[in-house]
């Protein structure tokens, strides 16, 4: 998957440019609440529990100020991606012990047979390796700006 293709998986209503939470659980709650509201999901707690369980497997904050909470749950019907940015940073148990500012939350239903969510996850991880794009993402404040970073 190419980074330009990422834009089709993001939507404005699932972008949080001023995440308020300061710790891992609150940050996941804030992001899951947004998904539940926008996607009209009835089982918000199941999604949250899955993401917390995924974090206990190993933190998804892999350093450089970025985290990728992800996993599969029956409580969602299609691949869903949420972007969040925290200016102050979140204590997300990052592998480099530094605050996390960028979040790419990726969840998919179990019946995602082609492992599309792993493809999207891999593509976002690659994007983040680019220091210039990472810097731009740290300052992004609108959806068009976010899309422009995928296209650049």
């Amino acid at each position, binding site marked *: 998957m190419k980074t330009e293709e990422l834009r089709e998986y993001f939507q404005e209503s699932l972008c949080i440019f001023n995440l308020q939470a300061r710790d891992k659980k609150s940050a996941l709650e804030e992001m899951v609440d947004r998904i539940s509201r926008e996607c009209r*999901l*009835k*089982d918000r*707690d*199941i999604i949250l*529990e*899955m993401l917390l*369980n*995924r974090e*206990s*497997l*190993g*933190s*998804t904050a*892999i*350093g450089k100020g970025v985290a*990728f909470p992800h*996993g*599969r*749950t*029956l*409580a*969602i*019907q299609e691949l869903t991606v949420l972007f969040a940015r925290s200016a102050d940073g979140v204590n997300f148990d990052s*592998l480099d012990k530094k605050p996390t500012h960028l979040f790419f939350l990726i969840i998919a*239903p*179990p*019946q995602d047979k082609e*492992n599309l969510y*792993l493809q999207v*996850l*891999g593509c976002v*991880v690659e994007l983040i390796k680019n220091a210039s794009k990472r810097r731009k993402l740290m300052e992004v404040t609108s959806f068009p700006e976010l899309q422009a970073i995928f296209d650049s």
Partner: protein
Amino acid sequence: MEDQAKLLVALQDLDLLIKEARDSDTSTELKEMGFKLDGVAKLQEARDKLAKRIDPQLLNRYERVARSYDRAIVPVTDNFCLGCFVTLPTSYQSLQNKNQILTCESCGRILYFP
């Protein structure tokens, strides 16, 4: 009493997470991306705790179906069982509102109404 249907779905999510962490292809792919997956024992503990909150008969039913299929619980969309794609009786819609745990009469999988 806790919502048994929700607990079952959470259990299946956890089983899937453990399965993926143990699957060599998936875990290799995730590790290559930079993720650490060293907490499988913690997940197993969480699984054991969660299983104790589920009615034993229901848990037994889940585990029996899970032995036959990759996923014991499947979603219902447009009145179709997404396990075997058979149309379900219309009465199921009203029964699920009463928090009953329903099973597909065709394939035997447990049904989840998103």
